[in-house]
Every structure is written in structure tokens, then in C-alpha cells.
């Protein structure tokens, strides 16, 4: 990270004094443009990213006149004080949390095992396995949702809570594999060899060396899985039957009228996620220091 700062690059502040390099006016101009314009543009893009978030926050304090929370009417803390006022919304949030927890638990276990198998072992069928893990990520959600619904219809299984969880586990597994794999690939396998040299058997090596080293990757994967599950709409829409998750509630509300409490939940989700990131950073720093 520091390399960008302390290594004197050619595009650095002053042209090398008396340096032999010839810098054309064009190069100097484009250097200046790159130094400042890129960053200015990046800031603009970040503003673009946050405009809707600001709107979500602002309209959580709106006092909507009708059913639709689309125009600003006046300031009110009503939605924040009574977040569960709209019928069924908090039930939907709780249902989404339950589904997210279940799907995260199972998909993290399955995906982590898969990642270990793929990174730490050479075996027949490795390419096929990688392909099968990759495919769900290369498939549009609407196709996965549709195909699962077809399966459930063929089997005569009614859709609902269980089928949502089954579906969420399926699309989460691949994301867990990718995340854990990235962490494992960056680990020094000589640490495990050293443990083996010190008479640790395979299981001990795994439990005392590999697992603790892989833990941050597994945690990141679990958080990602939870976020994906909690926010999933398209696949859920196909396999939910009469079960209403939070995104399903929002989808329905978009047609009937969106209460400002929806914005409260959206803002709270953002704050919870930022809190998690913040705690993670603090833990990291405490460990380093």
C-alpha cells in the first residue's frame, strides 16, 4: 500500500530535477490529467453510488401522504419509532433472517469442504468439479429459479420456506467455494508440512494449523452467503409459494405502496453491515498491535 506513496514514480509531483528523461508536453499534460482527473472522476462515481442511499435514508424520515412513499411530504420519525407498523413486514424480515442463517450454515460447511478438496488435493475429476462449481455463477438467476421450480413441480413438492432454503444453499455454495479457495491459495503450505514434520497427523494438522489460518476466509464466505441469501429476490420469487421474505415483501409493496419502514430496514441493513466491517477492522488492528 505504501509503495504507491513513497516510490518516486514518473508521474510523481515534480519532474526529476535535471533528470535525463525527456518529457514531452503531451506526456506532462496527460500525467497531470491522470493524477487529478482520475481521482476526481472516482469521487464522482462514489457520489453516484451513494445518491440512492441518501434517498433511502431521507425517505425513511418522510411523512407520506398516501400509500406511496415517492414524493417528499414532510419530516417525521414515525417510521423509525414504529418500524413494525406495516402488517407483515417484520415477520418477513425475521423469516429472511432465519432463511439466511440456515442457508449460510449449510452452504458454508459444504463450500468450505469443497474448497479444501479442490485446493489441497489432486484427484480425478478435479476439472469437472471446478466446472460444476463455476456453472451456477455463470447462470442467470432467473434460469436457476425457473429450473428449481420445474423440479419441484415435477416432484409435486409444494414451494415454501424449505424450498427457499434449499435454493439459497445451492447458489451460495459456489460463492463460498470461491471465497475460501482464494484464502487457501494464499496460504503457505509449508506450515502444514512443518506440522507434519512435528508428528502431527492429518487431522491434527487440519485442526491446529489449516483451519485457524483459513478461518478469516471462511468467515468472509459466511458473511457473503448471508448477505446474498438475505437480499435474494429472483430465485426466491420462483420458489417461495406463499412464504414472504423481506425482498418479496418489498416487491409486493412496490405495487401496493411502499411504507417508509421499508427504508428504515434498508438503512438498518447498511448500518449493520458497516458495523460488522468496522468491528472486523478493529479486531484486525488489535491483533496486529
Amino acid at each position, binding site marked *: *500500500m*505504501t509503495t*504507491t506513496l513513497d516510490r518516486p*514514480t514518473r508521474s510523481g509531483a515534480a519532474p526529476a530535477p535535471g533528470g535525463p528523461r525527456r518529457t514531452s508536453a503531451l*506526456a506532462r499534460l*496527460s*500525467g497531470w490529467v491522470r493524477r487529478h482527473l*482520475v481521482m476526481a*472522476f*472516482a469521487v464522482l*462515481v462514489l457520489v*453516484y*453510488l*451513494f*445518491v*440512492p442511499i441518501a434517498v433511502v435514508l431521507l*425517505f425513511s424520515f418522510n411523512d407520506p401522504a398516501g400509500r406511496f412513499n415517492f414524493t417528499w411530504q414532510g419530516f417525521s420519525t414515525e417510521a423509525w419509532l414504529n418500524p413494525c407498523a406495516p402488517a407483515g413486514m417484520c415477520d418477513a424480515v425475521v423469516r429472511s433472517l432465519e432463511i439466511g442463517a440456515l442457508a449460510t450454515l449449510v452452504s458454508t460447511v*459444504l463450500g468450505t*469442504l469443497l474448497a*479444501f478438496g*479442490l485446493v*489441497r*488435493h*489432486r*484427484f480425478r475429476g478435479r476439472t469437472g*468439479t471446478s466446472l*460444476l*462449481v463455476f*456453472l451456477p455463477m455463470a*447462470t*442467470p*438467476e*432467473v*434460469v436457476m429459479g*425457473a*429450473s*428449481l421450480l*420445474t*423440479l419441484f*413441480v415435477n416432484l409435486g413438492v409444494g414451494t415454501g420456506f424449505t424450498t427457499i432454503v*434449499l435454493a439459497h*444453499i*445451492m447458489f451460495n*455454495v459456489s460463492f463460498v467455494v470461491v471465497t475460501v479457495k482464494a484464502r487457501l491459495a494464499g496460504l503457505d503450505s509449508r506450515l*502444514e*508440512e512443518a506440522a507434519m514434520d512435528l508428528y502431527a497427523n*492429518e487431522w491434527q494438522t487440519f485442526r491446529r494449523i489449516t483451519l485457524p489460518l483459513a478461518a478469516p476466509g471462511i468467515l468472509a464466505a459466511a458473511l457473503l452467503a448471508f448477505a446474498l441469501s438475505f437480499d435474494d*429476490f*429472483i430465485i426466491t*420469487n420462483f420458489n417461495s409459494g406463499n412464504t414472504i421474505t423481506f*425482498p418479496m415483501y*418489498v*416487491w409486493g409493496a*412496490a405495487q401496493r405502496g*411502499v411504507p417508509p419502514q421499508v427504508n428504515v430496514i*434498508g438503512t438498518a441493513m*447498511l448500518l*449493520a453491515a458497516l458495523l460488522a*466491517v468496522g468491528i472486523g*477492522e478493529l479486531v484486525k488492528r488489535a491483533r496486529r498491535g
Partner: protein
Amino acid sequence: MTAALTGHAGPATDATDEEPPRPRRWYTPYLLLLPGLAWLAVFFLVPMVALASMSLQTGSLGQGYRLTWEWANYSEALSTFGAQFGRSFLYAGAATLLCLLIGYPLAYAIAFKAGRWRNLLLILVIAPFFTSFLIRTLAWKIILSDDGWVVDTLRAVALLDDGGRLLATPAAVILGLTYNFLPFMVLPLYASLEKMDERLLEAAADLYANAFTAFRKVTWRLSLPGVVAGTLLTFIPAAGDYVNVQFLGTPNSAMVGTVIQSRFLTVLDYPTAAALSFALMVSVLVIVLVYVRRVGARDLL
């Protein structure tokens, strides 16, 4: 790892002769893989086969479906909904291009210009996406609405006619798609740019490359894996999306996802919907394969 297998790690000091290093059990990897692969087989592969089969069946929900190898399902579905199909790829393509155009400078700035703010900026890129996908898209509906300040401003500077709108136009849908999938572009781009050795740029400059040439021949080339990953991660979900078009577009600008959704969940015309889904899946896969080959980043898979 392999050293542990070939005996280097064996107990060399005391038990040299009696105890040869235990070979790893050959079935360990399969035990690790079995549960996950079984899950993916049952809930990904089998449903895909079911979908493919459904797309060739005739019948109705009441009387049941029979596999009659009805290839006409495809021609019918594609001729009826060809417009929606084409629109999906058009919108998704436009959104992907826009994501690349605005995502690349952002990733570049974070990787090379941000210094110690790098982690903070990365968090800022991801943070908006912790607010629900649907809620974010609804927020755009507010921003782009006819009496919103964006439309007012555009009308004031005559970029938009007095009766002109933003909401319920293709532009709004593309903008929504661009917004919603931007982090999928920025993060892979950042990951590949961040790995780049900046001294390569100095070397290029030493060899009399101007900034533009250096970018084109060094930075861009080295970031290609990120470009490929980012464009795929943006294009694939965008092509199947129907939320943006539902909230920001009109029924006339429906995408293929809209049709699949309504055929499956409202009209209950499963064979047509299945044919459309399978056609979408195959076209996406073909595009992915051709694209990855052309750019020559095959090791990405």
C-alpha cells in the same frame, strides 16, 4: 504438500524403517467433495435437466405434461418473445459497457491513487450494496420521477423536452442495471490492477512510451483478466434481471426475465417459459465461451 507425500516429512529420526510415511488416503478428496457436489447435482444439474425436458413437453398444468420432443416450443417462444430476448442482451450489453467505462477509472484510482485511503474507498464501493437490491432500485424510481430534481434540471437546461421523462424509458433501465451491478465490475478490476507492478510503467516510460501508450500496452493488458471477470459478472446477472425493468421501465420494454417470470408464475405456461429459460442459459454460455476465448483468458475458469 507433495513433499509430505513423498516421504520428506516422514518421521526420519527414530522410526525410520518400521514406519514408512503413511500415504494420504486416496478417498479423502472425494469425502470432502461429496456433500457439496451432491447438493449441486441435485439442486443445480437435475433441475437443469428438468428444465430442458420441460421445454420439450406439451400439455397443461391441469392435465399434466408429456415429453413429446416439441421443438416447436423453442421456435414459438423465440418468435413470440424475440423482442424481449434481444432487448435483454442489448440492455445488459449497454449496462456492461457503461460499468466498464465508469468502473475502470474508479478501480484504477483505488489501486494506484488512493494511498492509505484504499481500504476505505473499497468499503465505500461495496457499502451501498448492503441496502437491499429492491430498495436501491426503488430509490432510483424516486430520483428519476417526473417531478424529481433530475428531470427538472434536465428540462431547465433543455436536455429534455418539457414533457420528456426519464422514468419508464430504456435509459432508466440501463442506468438502473449499471448502478446495481457496478461493484461486480469494480472489484475484479481492482483485484487485477492492484497486483500490477508499477515499475512496469516506469520501464515503459523509460522506453519512451507516452502515458497513453503505456496505459494501452501495459496497464490495460495486465488488467484484462479483471476486465473479463468484471464484464461477465455484470453481463450475466443483468441479462436475466427483471427487477430494474419492472421498477424503472414499462411493460413495453419488458426483458426476457419478465416473460419467464410471468409465464412461470402467472400464466403457468411452463413449456414456453422453460424454452425461453433454456435458450437464455445457452446463449449466455455461448457468449461467455466465445468472449473468454477471444480475449484469451481461458485460465480464468
